[in-house]
């Protein structure tokens, strides 16, 4: 009997211990369940932290004085401090409070440190990011900043603020994602900020199209590439200089090219937010053309719809600053916004600031490459990637004089990117945030190198009354020797960068007679501009639409109102459809099937707006994508380049309008010679068959909202944390864009600033301030945004918000 009890006891104790151990270790992708579901400290703290306390006071060491942080009903922090140091410390604190995991994971991605927290499946990604070396670049820049440098001081203060929050949160109050992934943030440093800043620059400016274009040139030949991917739109401009290739052969080894493209694809989803839909709009209206008698500025940068949102909205007041706008969590700078005197917004220039060099490796010594007649050794850097649940991996990064080797498969290719030589833009942001006029703002832009942006600017001074509007393309633009660098180049030394376009020669316009200026990623300067800046310009449909709207409104009403500006941002008229529809109608005037006739009727009755209740929008969108595939798909397949980019719609527009017999319309798979109208008919037949298959046989029911949605995915990829899909307006061409049938990018921030009375400005973004999915501010602005509505900002000069709009107060006291 006693021995039975002993056995029973041993088994009971063993079961208890085993169960506790089981609950304490991760099982597959799941974190330890005991800690995760523990009612005090597990995931449930996410619910506890969903709402900030109405009033809280904290002691923080290192402050110059007290800081008051007021949160309004949208969770926007209004930070009132007495010094620059305290302002940036408090900004670091609120960024961490709202978005710590987002900051952390974006930094880890940029630094090539995802494997540390996500496991071995991220080693390849990490290796590639270490090869690019964003953290190396950041470290190099940081070393140039002395302790007295104001940028360094801002970075240090910001990091102290982030760390104050980390210390206060402990492990108990970390965001949900940390609990799910079972790790904790490390102390934040200026290096984290600069590395994350490097990611922004990389995502918006490092461009791998040269590789794709190289493959296209291999398959289609240089003449076809120059015709279909012209330097300037819409008329093809032959290159003024040779392409810098090695003669008649391929411009890049196919295996090397595909290896690079695969590595870049592997960087999703962290890079995608910055690359998908990198189109944007901004425009300014001069005081004389504004209904307020003061300038107006509108800006809506198009980036990913990620949650937590890519932006974090703030009002900073203290020291040298009194500024409102959007910041990137992890970085102490307002990138788009306004202060009491000026406003600015940015669109991506899309400049060509990346080149790829095919290095000739010494057959007798693979550690050397040829440059200007000599064999030079590759520089080697050894990096160690720590792996969660696995062994450390040592990675050797090799660099040539051009930059890191991005592939050695098939052939050795090095990447040269202006980000390697331009440091950080935070200094520029810190300067423009406090600029009071165009002169000061332009001086700040002198420090802004990468990614190249088109800055729309407006300023208003009350006494004496003064007003400025301006637009300027700004960045670091290489001048190449003997080449445009549109495809991979021979690295032996003949096609090097020999300097930079001088700052004073950047495209710029100030106070034009028209009374307005606009940019939408189109070519920045006319044909007489002497420097090559790039070729991947937006086809220009949005730019045409903005200019038409501004010009039309001024002609009709004399002035533009702030409400007009907001309406323009939500405009869905498809200018490309306007250009193509007459040709589609003519070719299909006698189409045979009833379905086709009904579809043509729907198109003829369509008002060209990509609104959710328009069947014409669905037919047009489906048609144009079919048509483009029909025109080029056969040629791409024959050249073995299927899946690579197709020409932009403006190139197709030129062919349709001016070259109906172009060989591109011929289907190379048939013996007959097809021409434009044949393909216009074929694409329409395919369109109606496709739509009937998806939505049934009544074209009137093929509304755009059934075909087209927007999805707001969480950065972790967890569906449980995403919002949408929602039926959505817009397409790739419209001012209010929604590219793709399931749009995952678009206006990431909409802002209309009324200079002279900035507190009447309106903003909105698709998300919310908090990264906590249970917070009322996780996606509270999304509902407004979806309705194309705005909120009026609060921009108080003293630490007080409008009655009834104060949600919480946090006072950071010096300890």
């Amino acid at each position: 009997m006693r021995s039975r009890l002993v056995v029973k006891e041993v088994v009971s104790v063993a079961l208890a211990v085993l169960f506790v151990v089981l609950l304490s270790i991760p099982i597959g992708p799941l974190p330890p369940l005991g800690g995760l579901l523990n009612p005090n400290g597990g995931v449930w703290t996410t619910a506890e932290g969903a709402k900030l306390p109405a009033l809280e006071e904290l002691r923080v060491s290192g402050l110059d004085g007290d800081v008051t942080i007021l949160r309004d009903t949208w969770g926007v922090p209004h930070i009132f401090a007495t010094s620059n140091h305290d302002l940036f410390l408090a900004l670091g604190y609120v960024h961490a409070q709202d978005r710590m995991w987002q900051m952390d994971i974006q930094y880890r991605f940029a630094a090539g440190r995802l494997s540390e927290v996500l496991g071995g499946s991220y080693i390849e990604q990490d290796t590639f990011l270490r090869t690019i070396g964003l953290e190396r670049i950041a470290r190099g820049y940081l070393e140039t900043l002395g302790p007295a440098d104001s940028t360094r001081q801002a970075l240090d203060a910001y990091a102290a603020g982030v760390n104050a929050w980390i210390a206060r949160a402990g492990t108990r109050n970390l965001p949900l994602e940390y609990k799910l992934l079972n790790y904790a943030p490390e102390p934040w440093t200026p290096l984290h900020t600069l590395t994350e800043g490097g990611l922004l620059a990389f995502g918006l400016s490092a461009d791998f199209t040269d590789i794709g274009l190289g493959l296209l040139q291999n398959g289609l030949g240089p003449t076809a590439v120059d015709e279909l991917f012209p330097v300037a739109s819409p008329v093809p401009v032959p290159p003024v200089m040779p392409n810098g290739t090695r003669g008649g052969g391929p411009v890049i080894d196919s295996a090397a090219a595909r290896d690079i493209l695969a590595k870049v694809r592997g960087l999703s989803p962290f890079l995608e937010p910055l690359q998908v839909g990198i189109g944007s709009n901004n425009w300014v209206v001069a005081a004389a053309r504004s209904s307020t008698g003061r300038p107006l500025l509108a800006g809506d940068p198009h980036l990913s719809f990620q949650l937590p949102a890519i932006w974090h909205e703030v009002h900073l007041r203290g020291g040298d600053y009194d500024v409102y706008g959007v910041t990137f969590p992890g970085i102490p700078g307002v990138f788009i916004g306004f202060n009491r005197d000026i406003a600015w917004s940015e669109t991506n220039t899309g400049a060509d600031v990346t080149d790829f060099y095919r290095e000739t490796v010494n057959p007798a010594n693979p550690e050397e490459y040829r440059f200007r007649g000599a064999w030079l050794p590759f520089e080697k850097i050894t990096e160690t990637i720590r792996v969660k649940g696995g062994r450390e991996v040592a990675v050797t990064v090799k660099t040539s004089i051009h930059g890191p080797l991005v592939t050695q498969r098939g052939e050795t290719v090095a990447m040269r990117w202006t980000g390697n030589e331009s440091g950080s833009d935070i200094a520029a942001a810190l300067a423009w945030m406090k600029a009071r006029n165009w002169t000061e703002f332009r001086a700040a832009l002198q420090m802004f190198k990468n990614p190249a942006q088109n800055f729309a600017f407006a300023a208003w001074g009350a006494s004496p009354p003064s007003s400025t509007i301006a637009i300027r393309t700004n960045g670091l633009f290489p001048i190449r020797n003997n080449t445009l660098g549109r495809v991979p180049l021979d690295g032996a030394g003949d096609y090097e960068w020999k300097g930079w376009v001088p700052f004073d020669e950047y495209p710029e316009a100030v106070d034009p007679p028209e009374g307005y200026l606009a940019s939408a990623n189109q070519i920045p300067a006319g044909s007489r501009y002497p420097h090559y800046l790039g070729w991947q310009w937006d086809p220009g449909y949005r730019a045409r639409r903005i200019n038409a709207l501004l010009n039309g409104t001024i002609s009709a009403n004399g002035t533009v109102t702030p409400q007009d500006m907001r309406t323009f941002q939500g405009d869905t008229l498809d200018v490309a459809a306007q250009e193509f529809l007459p040709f589609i109608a003519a070719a299909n005037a006698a189409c045979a099937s009833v379905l086709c006739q009904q579809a043509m009727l729907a198109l003829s009755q369509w008002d060209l707006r990509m609104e959710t209740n328009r069947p014409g929008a669905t037919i047009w969108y489906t048609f144009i994508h079919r048509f483009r595939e029909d025109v080029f798909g056969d040629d791409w397949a024959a050249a073995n380049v299927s899946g690579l980019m197709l020409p932009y719609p403006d190139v197709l527009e030129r062919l349709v309008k001016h070259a109906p017999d172009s060989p591109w319309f011929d289907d190379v798979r048939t013996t007959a010679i097809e021409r434009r109208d044949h393909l216009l008919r074929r694409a329409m037949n395919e369109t109606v068959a496709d739509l009937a298959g998806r939505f049934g046989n009544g074209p009137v029911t093929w509304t755009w909202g059934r075909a087209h949605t927007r999805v707001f995915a969480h950065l972790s990829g967890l569906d449980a944390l995403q919002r949408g899909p929602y039926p959505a307006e817009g397409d790739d061409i419209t001012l209010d864009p929604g590219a793709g049938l399931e749009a995952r990018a678009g206006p990431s921030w909409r802002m209309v600033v009324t200079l002279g009375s900035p507190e009447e400005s309106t903003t909105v973004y698709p998300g919310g301030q908090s990264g906590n999915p249970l917070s009322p501010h996780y996606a509270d602005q999304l509902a407004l945004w979806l309705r194309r509505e705005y909120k009026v900002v609060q921009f108080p000069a003293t630490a007080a918000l409008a009655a009834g709009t104060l949600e919480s107060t946090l006072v950071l006291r010096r300890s």
Partner: protein
Amino acid sequence: MLLRWAAPWWKSVLVGSVLTLVSLALGLWMLTVLSAAVAGFLSGRGRSGAARGIQSTAPVWILWLLVLALVAPVEGLLLILGGILGPGWGLAVFLFVLIPILLGAFGGMAGGVLAELLSKDEPRSGAAAETESAPR
């Protein structure tokens, strides 16, 4: 002596529950198993020890969360967790309840059997025996 003090069944549960509460308050959820062991030990027998263990752990875990739910959007989190785990919020609730039940059962059983083992060395008190068979 201890067994005699814990003679009514609820006293062992009370002790176990207080200890569970303290464990959770300290952020040491794994000590829940020891709280259950104490409750089980006080019950004096293995099988009833498991029951006392469960009674002293699961309600505290669940109550903690219910109280939290009064001030925080716990139900929203359950939906999210259910979405992450796959089948839905039911699985999240199931796992959450299962953990303290098993901790309580294993801990309570170990405590109860230990009490039985120790009681073999001395005559079992009548009071304890009565308590075991008392109607509940």
